[in-house]
Structures are given as C-alpha cells and as structure tokens.
C-alpha cells in the first residue's frame, strides 16, 4: 500500500523557471519529432532503392 505524505514539500517554480522549462520542453519535442520524421523518410528512401534494384534485376518478375 502506498502512503501519501500530505505534508510533502513541493517546489513552486518561478515564472522564469517555468518559461525556461517550457522552452526546453518544446525544443526537445520538436527535436524528437524531427528525428522520427527523418528516420521514417530515410527508411522509405532506402526501401525504395532496394525495391527498385530488386525489380530491375528481374528478381520480382520485372525487367
């Protein structure tokens, strides 16, 4: 059973600290989203090349 201490001391961020944290969070979010898009797009490009080379070689019945 988890006991919650109701007298737990919490930290209230100053306005400047909140603004800085929000700024960092947005930057990390944008960077992660960009990373996902980059890996997705390059994977598509690489598979595209790979597929084309297989088709071109006649391995998939083409050519």
């Amino acid at each position: 059973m988890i006991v919650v201490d109701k007298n737990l001391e919490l930290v209230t961020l100053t306005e400047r600290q909140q603004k800085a944290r929000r700024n960092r969070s947005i930057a990390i979010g944008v960077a992660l989203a960009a990373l996902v898009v980059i890996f997705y797009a390059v994977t598509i490009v690489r598979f595209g090349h790979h597929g084309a080379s297989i088709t071109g070689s006649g391995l998939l019945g083409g050519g």
Partner: protein
Amino acid sequence: MALADDRLMEDAGFRISEATAGDFFALLKPRVMSLVVFTAFVGLVAAPVAINPLIAIVAILAIAIGAGASGALNMWYDADIDAVMTRTASRPVPAGRVTPGEALSFGLVLSVLSVMTLGVLVNWLSASLLAFTIFFYAVIYTMWLKRWTPQNIVIGGAAGAIPPVIGWAAATGSVSLESVILFLIIFLWTPPHFWALALFKSDDYARAGIPMMPNVAGQASTRRQIFAYALILAPVGVLPWALGYTTAGYGVVSAALGAGFVWYAWKVLAMADDDRAMKPAKALFGYSLLYLFAIFAAYLVDCVVGRALMMGGV
C-alpha cells in the same frame, strides 16, 4: 502547500535550471558549426558519386550535430578557463546559465545520437570518422593538448579539418586523395588563423594559462611561423587544380586567394615588436576566415559547373 526555499535547495545540491533552448544551442558553437557544415557539404558534393538528396541532408545534419556535441564537451571541460577569458566569459557554462553536468550530458547524448544516426542511415565509415573527430577534439585536443603544448592547435586542427573527408565518405563510402587535400587545406590554415587571434588576445590566453604560441615562443617567433604556414598553405590550396581535379578557373581563384594570404601574413611578419594595436594580425584573422570560405566556395562552384558542362556535353 509548503514552499521549499531556493537557497536551501541550492545548499542541498539541487538547482532548478533556468537554461533555455538557446543556451543549449550556444553550447554547440554555432559559428564553428557553420564552417563545419559548409566544408562537409563541399566534400559531399565534390564526391564523384550521386547521393540521394535526403540522405545528403541527413549526413550534413549528423555531422553538424556531432561537431556541436564536441563543442559542448569542450565547453564543459574548459569552463574554468573560459571564465577568465573576455572572449569566452559569456558562454553558457561560465556565465552560470547551464551547469557543467548539463553540458556534459548534452554533449555525450548528442555525440552518440549523431554517430549512430550517420552510421545507421548513411554509412559506418563516415560515422567512424565522425566518432574519431569528436574524440580527437574533446579528449586529445581539449583535455590534453590545449593546456600542455603550444602546438595544441597545430595537432588539434586535425579535428576541424576532417569534416570534408566525412562528407566525401558519406557520399562514396571511401576516402580518396582529393578529400585528403581538402583536409590539408584546413589543417594548414588552422595555425596561422588561430595564431593571428592569439597575437592580439595573448593577454587573455596568458591569464587563462593556455600555452599559445605567442605566450610560449614569443611574438616574433609566432609571426615567423605564421608566415611559414602561409607559404605552405598557398600552394596546397592550388593542388586540386595542379592534380587535375578542377578546372583552371579554380586554379586562378585559389592562387589569388593564396597570394592574398601570403601578403597578409607578410604584413604580420613585418609588424613592429611594440605594435599594441596589432592591426595586421586582426586583418589576417579576418582574411583567413574569408580565405577558407572563398576557396571552398570556388571548389564547390568548379565541381558543380564542371559536372553541369559535362552533362550538357560541352
């Protein structure tokens, strides 16, 4: 709700960061990064292999982030000397906006991320070269050479010279003489560039205890060495044309740029010992930046135009 006092938290070793994304971006040394991006781009475009534009962009991005990561590691380790130099005192770590631990973590995470991205999405030779560059700059140069020998930037300059080789390797999966010549141009450019800066910032370097050439060997010896490097750099800049890699157009431009470099270095050599304004050293520093940008731009234009003419059957 009770509020914990900020002072108490700091005493207990806790600190709530007020660093913005801009402070972390400054850790990447964006100005140095722009030079790395440009030279790596030239290496990538000059390579005789067509590369998918998206993969080329990813390669350049990974190289830029890797270079930035080594800059962050440098700022973490050098925070003590950055704090006493006017040129670097406002950097995020010495100014207290970013803690050394944050800078170290940031640098390490970006190092791994950039190398892995380049390896997985482009090729492992370029990723290995990038990993070596980060290691060489952060460990060999920053932690060892910089505080130990006046040859620090001569040997350490190799790290800044590798990006065009990485760009070339990203496109071709190999390293060739052509890319090694691009490396040599930056490698030989580095000492006169930084020694020109060290001449008019020698008080700064002395205060920080960094053994730069003017502080160790004296200003006269540094001026002679700057001139000697200029004499070597000028013909090496023309080598791509002499070896048949470019057209005569590049040969003429690079020869003129090299002659300009020698002329500015000559003015530094002729500088009076008691010259406090050091205008020739400042002029050489400014010209050296222009030189590197212009010679790589000339190489890029020569490659692109030459390729376009060949495709047009001219």
